């Protein structure tokens, strides 16, 4: 049996190992079975009553589950005559919680010109919420303000001014995002830890979600760093937390045989380049840190700060 599990994204790509969903939310799990597995051979089950199937529990087709009550749930695909451990997916069902407020400020020149547009913000927030539903967190637009400061506008790529900019809004109780014309060559987002985050546009939900991720205490993860060999090895159990491994017997089951670790890293929200994906795993994933050290990088739901805020 060759299999992987996925939560389908809007782009149609499978998202591996969804770490969770909201009560009332739904997620689609899919396993690719080999041709000798019949419809009747597969019985799906949910262990803890925290989620339920929408369209039955038998068959090789993908399964849609809905969250019923907060807590940890385990989905198992029991396969007749299959001798290995059954594929299993542990995920969280999160309670509906108050959204985290995001305050936006546009840095303008003397004529009111600025990067980005306030009208983009609702869809920006919707995009971020779509990503963060995996960890049961929502965000909402709390305020939009403008400030005319020509020195900041023209020199927003200077770290000294960036530190001044992120101190304009303080103690809002939420996140503070500042839209500036420049941050650094080819850098579209930057989080100044605990102070505020900077963005050069108002359209990329991925960038905002990634920068918020840093405030959730997640780190950047890389597949290659200077002075170190690039990660060419296939994904293995030691690279993931047990919650992300799906009960697979190894060497790679239930991931696609030969799936490189680098591919999994690049699918993650905290991959250090803007080309990164939207996946938030349940636990850490092994890769390179920004310091160039190979090891487990905290990019998953476990251990994250669930109430990220800037001071």
């Amino acid at each position, binding site marked *: 049996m060759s299999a992987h599990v996925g939560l389908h994204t809007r782009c149609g790509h499978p998202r591996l190992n969804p770490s969770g969903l909201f009560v009332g939310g739904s997620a689609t799990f899919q396993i690719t079975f080999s041709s000798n597995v019949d419809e009747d051979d597969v019985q799906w089950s949910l262990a803890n009553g925290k989620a339920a199937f929408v369209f039955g529990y038998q068959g090789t087709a993908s399964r849609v589950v809905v969250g019923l009550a907060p807590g940890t749930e385990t989905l198992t695909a029991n396969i007749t005559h299959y001798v290995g451990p059954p594929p299993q997916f542990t995920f969280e069902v999160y309670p509906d919680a108050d959204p985290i407020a995001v305050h936006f400020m546009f840095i303008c020149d003397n004529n009111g010109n600025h990067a980005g547009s306030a009208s983009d913000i609702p869809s920006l927030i919707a995009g971020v919420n779509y990503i963060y539903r995996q960890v049961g967190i929502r965000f909402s637009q709390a305020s939009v303000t403008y400030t005319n400061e020509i*020195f900041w506008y023209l020199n927003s790529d200077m770290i000294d*001014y960036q530190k001044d900019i992120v101190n304009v809004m303080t103690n809002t109780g939420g996140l503070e995002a500042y839209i500036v014309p420049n941050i650094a060559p080819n850098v579209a987002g930057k989080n100044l830890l605990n102070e505020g985050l900077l963005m050069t546009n108002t359209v990329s939900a991925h960038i905002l979600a990634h920068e918020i991720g840093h405030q959730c205490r997640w780190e950047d993860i*890389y597949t290659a760093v200077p002075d170190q060999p690039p990660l060419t090895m296939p994904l293995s159990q030691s690279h993931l937390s047990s919650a992300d491994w799906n009960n697979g017997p190894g060497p790679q089951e239930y991931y696609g045989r030969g799936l490189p670790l680098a591919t999994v890293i690049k699918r993650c929200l905290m991959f250090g380049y803007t080309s990164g994906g939207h996946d938030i795993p349940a636990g850490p994933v092994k890769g390179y840190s920004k310091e160039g050290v190979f090891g487990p990088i905290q990019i998953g739901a476990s251990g994250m700060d669930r109430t990220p805020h800037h001071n």
Partner: protein
Amino acid sequence: MKVFSPYIIVSVMTGLAFTVFGQGRIKLQDELAEHLATNCISKGSARLWWHPDETLIKQNLAFERERQLSQGSVVRMLADGLEVEVSRTSVTNTAMVSRLLDAILRSVPPPTNLLEKALFSSADWSRPLVMEACVLLETSTDEGAALVKALVKNMSSERRAECYAMLGKRLEAVYLLPYSKRNSHILSQGVRFMLTAIRIDPSAECIMALDMALDKPLPTWKDWNVRKRIAEKYKDSDGKVGEYFGKLAMTLGPPPTLSWTNVEPLLFPHPIDNVDGDWEAECDSLQQGINRQIAFDFGVSTREVLRLAEKKMDELAHAEQLTPKDAELLGLLSGVLWHSRDAGSSGFLLNLLNSPGHQDVIWIIHTYLRVAGPDQFMPMIRRVKKEFPQLNPIRLFPRCWVIAAEYAGSNQEKTLVQREIIGFLRQQIHDVPVQGRSLLDKCLLRCDPLWESSTDRKRLFGHTTP
């Protein structure tokens, strides 16, 4: 459960009794023995050193505080004891040495050269263990250069070659394990150390040992340019070294030359978008590390690498039209020169200033000021004021102030150049619009010891900082 046998404790105490305590040592020996037995128990297997153990570090601190010992005494005592143990030629208790190393490594935030003394006094049986521990602790930004230099200074080339070979064997054994059981930390630390050693060690025999040692644990080693270059360099050596590298050179073929096509994929660092410290310094360090790595791989100086980047920038700046991709590349190259901070770029930047093409003149001025050093600061400022009056001062000057403050330094005694730079900043604060004064004030506070209580400042800001 006691991890340390009485023998170990006595051994440790013997080492520390003479070096640390003198009188009253018996009582302290007993107390330290108790501390070791109750607190220094590795939770996992011995020699799985991943991270310093915060709990143990706190317990060591508490032990030291209670007995009014200086901070780090426990670790130093253990290291002294270790030094005694590893130098024994007749006793080969590897389990004991492993446990002592375990306790030390879990107590020390790396990097440290704490174990080097033990390494140089270790007997043949204990050297592999201590060597591995030293490499594991090498997480400093110099990527193990300090350890390699210490080895070169204190060990014969034969012994170094033995050390590299045994480290290679250890890494090979780790690499051959299934992925799930592999200790990736030691693998990455060991490879990083050996790559540094191959750059620094002057002995041809040692380079051969390192090349052999890297072959298995670093599967991509066969593709590194530096390996081809090393083979080319040593293929005509005498004896077995020449024979080995001669064969290797035949297999690998000639090393590729330094060209933009070969360098471009390696030159640009990943963006650093999470700031918790000195962002500029972090970016500088990253870019300069990349430059060194490319220079190492191609066997050239970092200047030559940067000359290639400058040539490409010149080409793009003077192209008839810039595609969006070219413009992005120009931006990335700007970052490379800015963060490389190489004084050798000064001449190129001066030429570019005369004919900027698509390149931003203000960026050229800022980068020149940043790379050329303090002596060139005021001459360039004077030139800019005279030749480029059309430039927007609000964009031009703020970055100049920050660079000026760095050059003027935080020291009390100022050179003539530094005094002149401070004079420039003091003048600027009168010339700029009010909104610009805040940053200027910060810059002056950083470098001018007289500024904080000066009448100028009081007049401009009253008694409070803006």
